[in-house]
């Protein structure tokens, strides 16, 4: 004859605790690996329409892996487990026993666009004498650094990281890529490419002599304060 003893009660409690822990764990683990979640439909709002005149003459593609880490409180389960395997009353006092290192590793692909802002041009930067033309351009500059969400893969995400932290890492990647593009000579490449494009265009217009020149930085500062040609 079966009897409900304290042993049976203990076993039932132990099994219930186990079931609860497993449900809690699997629910958390699989909540982000389930079916593809779709965002709700919403309108795309056009906030501004700006008239610009930017001549893009160089494009640089780059891809980097970048990582960061921080210290986070150990999970309760980890602490319980460590307490079971090492029941030392002094355990948990040292920082390395209280915290764990968590990593965030991302792979970012970026596009850096360089060229000229023609809205800075003034009429006197175009000198025409009969069949010859001299065009004086501002220095080439980085016009866009693009790392869109589709170019950004989270490779490792341990612990809890906020969106701001992930975005911060993306900005760091953008800064590295921009510097690498400059080091690789994107601005010089942009200048050479612009000379070719503008020469072809102006020769096609019927000019026989085409000269492309670049301002110095003092003139750049002065022209920023003047009305544009655009």
């Amino acid at each position, binding site marked *: 004859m079966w009897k409900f003893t304290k042993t049976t009660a203990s076993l039932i409690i132990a099994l219930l605790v186990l079931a609860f822990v497993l449900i809690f764990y699997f*629910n958390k683990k699989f909540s982000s690996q389930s079916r593809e979640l779709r965002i709700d439909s919403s309108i795309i*709002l056009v906030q501004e329409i700006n008239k*610009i005149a930017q001549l893009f003459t160089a494009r640089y593609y780059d891809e980097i892996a970048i990582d960061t880490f921080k210290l986070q409180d150990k999970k309760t389960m980890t602490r319980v487990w460590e307490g079971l395997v090492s029941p030392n009353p002094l355990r948990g006092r040292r920082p390395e026993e209280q915290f764990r290192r968590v990593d965030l590793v991302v792979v970012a692909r970026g596009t850096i666009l360089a060229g000229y802002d023609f809205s800075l041009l003034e009429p006197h930067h175009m000198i025409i004498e009969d069949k010859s033309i001299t065009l004086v351009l501002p220095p080439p500059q980085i016009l866009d650094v693009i790392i869109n*969400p589709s170019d950004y893969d989270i490779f490792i995400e341990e612990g809890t990281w906020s969106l701001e932290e992930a975005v911060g890492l993306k900005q760091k990647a953008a800064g590295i890529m921009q510097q690498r593009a400059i080091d690789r000579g994107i601005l010089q490449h942009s200048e050479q490419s612009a000379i070719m494009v503008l020469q072809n265009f102006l020769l096609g217009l019927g000019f026989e002599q085409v000269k492309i020149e670049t301002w110095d930085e003092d003139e750049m500062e002065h022209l920023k304060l003047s009305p544009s040609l655009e």
Partner: protein
Amino acid sequence: MNIKYFFSIRILGLALLGVSLLFSCQRPSDKPGAITVRQLQDMSEMATVEFVVSRIIRASDTPSWYKYGDRKILMSAGATIKAGIDMGGITDNDINTQGSSITLTLPPASLISLNMHPESIQQEYESRGFFRSPFTNEERYRFLRQAEEEIRESIPEMGLLETAESHAVLFFESWLRLMGYEQVEVRIRK
């Protein structure tokens, strides 16, 4: 009595051991090395318009038979879209000059860039049930990728290319007049 309790505690200990093994399985063992895919290319695009757009991103992860509690997230993101014409696509046949009059035919406008600036991406709100884990950045970026795709798909409806073409016509007209042409006609190739 003590022996019975000892067995119960041992079962609980074994259960916890099993769970901790599950936790240890999810730890990644490897990290990527430095990847270098760098390329420098020529361009010849004149951007004539910039649209600044914004999108509210809402997502709900509702309960199902294996999930208890729901999760909701609200984010906002902005993007800058630039369009213009490819000056490399202007051939000699597109330029006709007769004395002080000129006819310039420009290639049709195209998309130059779409940039979802990192600083424009913000999380406005997040809520979750007790049994649910917070949204990971992998999930947040999955939503942002969907938003980016939707922005790309909506470009034809925005009138971006038409605006880029009309701005390009105005820009080249004013440029050609400064060059001394009195009669200027700038049109877009059909």
